[in-house]
């Protein structure tokens, strides 16, 4: 075995190193220095994230099972940034009393899931993908159940674990059909085997694969765990789940759809996805409209956002892919900003409903400001980043030129109005409504504050600084061959 192959996956290796160091610290350091674990992890991860921005070598390793290219590198970096923000936000929370014994586990599981996602992104073989998928999803069930005192936490975990296993069973069934048709599990080989095939089995397999990954992405109708788990899980976990996990799944979904099933694009999955996207955006929005619990509200909002992300997949071109990655990046900042505020408030007051936020601006102007930025960005209001990402993803989708996609984009656009409505409800609560017993002025921790500043800056600057999107298009242009089948 050629160990130099590991050099082709520096981010994974680096992440494992971080994991190991955290593990060692957790296991061997004395109890009194355990309180420094969050800071240790965060700093370590920050260093790692910074190092990862060094461009890496491009190529495939382990007999082509894993591939590193600029797009995967960029995607992993995006996830790293998101992870870093989550770690910063969680630092204070993990130091609370009830987390004392589980602090280490929290970080270890979190890092492991990230590792699983990296595998999903880089995998070019279904075995590796499945391993990545399961690595990314199982620990989350444990993380969701972390807050032992809260009943919702348990319910969330149970719902997650059962539906996740069911979903992966469906997914595996789909894979088994694919294997039955193609006789191989390499992406490229499957693609060449299924050219011209119009078998029913393939379509069923495709549907099951979409369902399996759609579950991670919370596409409607595979989304129903999302709201309950988001609401029940600890906020840090929810934040993590809503952005990082979604981003990784979206990217790998695009790779699978394009690279493996590219030949079936126009005949089958374009339309399957078409239906799913309409449902996802609309149902997500409709549910989000009437939520009062902010975490649950953001869950439905993230479902609808997933629909928008899928527009980048249905585009099935490099522009769409770049737009999708960009969308995820913006989404990371916007959603984490929102969760950052929610977490900060929940940690100190335990309040999570919209009504609790009435008059927040009077008492906590900066928190409100950050939340407003997040809401505007999610709603796609310029000059915040969300506007750009939405525009680009629509442009990417419309590049296909088909009238059907234009109609789809129109539906998506009409849905933005609904989404704007509920985002504005939050803004309204904070800025317009008055409440005599508003949440008192809070003092956020350094980590939370830093995370919020990073997010706010990201929301304001990412859109205006065009270099990010430009480089993403370059990265995806470099792997244009994955769309060769379409």
């Amino acid at each position: 075995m050629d160990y130099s192959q590991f050099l082709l996956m520096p981010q994974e290796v680096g992440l494992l190193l971080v994991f190991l160091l955290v593990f060692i610290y957790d296991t061997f350091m004395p109890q009194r220095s355990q309180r420094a674990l969050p800071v240790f992890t965060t700093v370590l991860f920050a260093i790692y994230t910074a190092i990862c921005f060094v461009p890496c070598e491009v190529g495939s390793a382990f007999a082509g099972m894993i591939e590193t290219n600029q797009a995967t590198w960029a995607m992993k970096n995006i996830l790293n940034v998101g992870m870093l923000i989550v770690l910063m936000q969680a630092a204070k929370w993990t130091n609370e009393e009830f987390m004392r014994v589980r602090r280490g586990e929290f970080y270890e599981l979190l890092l492991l899931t990230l590792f699983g996602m990296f595998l999903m992104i880089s995998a070019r073989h279904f075995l590796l993908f499945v391993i990545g998928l399961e690595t990314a999803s199982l620990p989350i069930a444990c993380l969701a159940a972390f807050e032992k005192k809260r009943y919702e936490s348990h319910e969330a975990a149970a719902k997650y674990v059962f539906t996740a296993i069911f979903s992966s069973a469906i997914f595996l069934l789909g894979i088994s059909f694919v294997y039955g048709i193609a006789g191989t599990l390499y992406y490229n080989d499957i693609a060449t085997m299924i050219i011209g095939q119009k078998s029913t089995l393939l379509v069923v397999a495709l549907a099951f694969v979409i369902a399996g990954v759609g579950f991670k992405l919370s596409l409607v109708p595979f989304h129903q765990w999302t709201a309950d788990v988001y609401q029940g899980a600890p906020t840090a976990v929810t934040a993590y789940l809503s952005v990082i996990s979604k981003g990784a799944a979206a990217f790998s979904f695009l790779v699978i759809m394009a690279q493996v099933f590219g030949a079936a694009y126009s005949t089958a999955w374009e339309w399957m996805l078409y239906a799913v996207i309409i449902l996802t955006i609309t149902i997500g929005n409709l549910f989000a409209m009437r939520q009062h619990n902010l975490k649950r509200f953001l869950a439905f909002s993230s479902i609808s956002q997933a629909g928008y992300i899928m527009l980048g997949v249905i585009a099935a071109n490099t522009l769409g892919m770049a737009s999708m990655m960009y969308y995820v990046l913006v989404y990371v900042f916007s959603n984490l900003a929102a969760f950052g505020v929610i977490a900060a408030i929940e940690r100190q007051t335990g309040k999570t409903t919209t009504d609790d936020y009435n008059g927040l601006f009077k008492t906590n102007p900066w928190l409100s400001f950050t939340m407003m930025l997040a809401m505007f960005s999610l709603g796609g209001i310029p000059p915040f980043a969300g506007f750009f990402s939405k525009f680009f993803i629509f442009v990417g989708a419309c590049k296909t030129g088909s009238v059907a996609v234009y109609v789809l984009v129109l539906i998506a656009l009409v849905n933005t109005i609904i989404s704007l409505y509920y985002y504005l409800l939050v803004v309204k609560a904070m800025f317009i409504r008055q409440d005599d017993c508003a949440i008192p002025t809070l003092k956020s921790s350094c980590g939370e504050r830093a995370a919020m500043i990073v997010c706010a800056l990201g929301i304001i600057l990412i859109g205006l600084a065009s270099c990010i999107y430009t480089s993403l298009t370059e990265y995806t242009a470099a792997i244009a061959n994955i769309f060769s089948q379409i």
Partner: protein
Amino acid sequence: MDLTLLMYLIPSLIMFGCGVYGFLTRKNMIAIMISLELMLNSIDINFVVFNRFLFPDQYEGMFFTLFAIAIAAAETAVALAIIINVFRAVKNVDINEITKLKF
């Protein structure tokens, strides 16, 4: 009589169907867990059979099955742990007990 591909696939499909049916109808979380196992195992059969009958000159399906079994085990472990957690919380393993979060 030679055993053909279908002769393996049909029982596997039935197995999967049983699993799904069990998942949808049982009230006990443990029973649901078992249904899930049924589903996962039927998939394993699929892989093995496809490999054996269609592509006998390589072992990808077999390997996949091995990994799948391991993953299934891990899933079961996590699921059981969570069921225990739930039991501690609601003193029950009835799936209908945990429907507080909805709408």
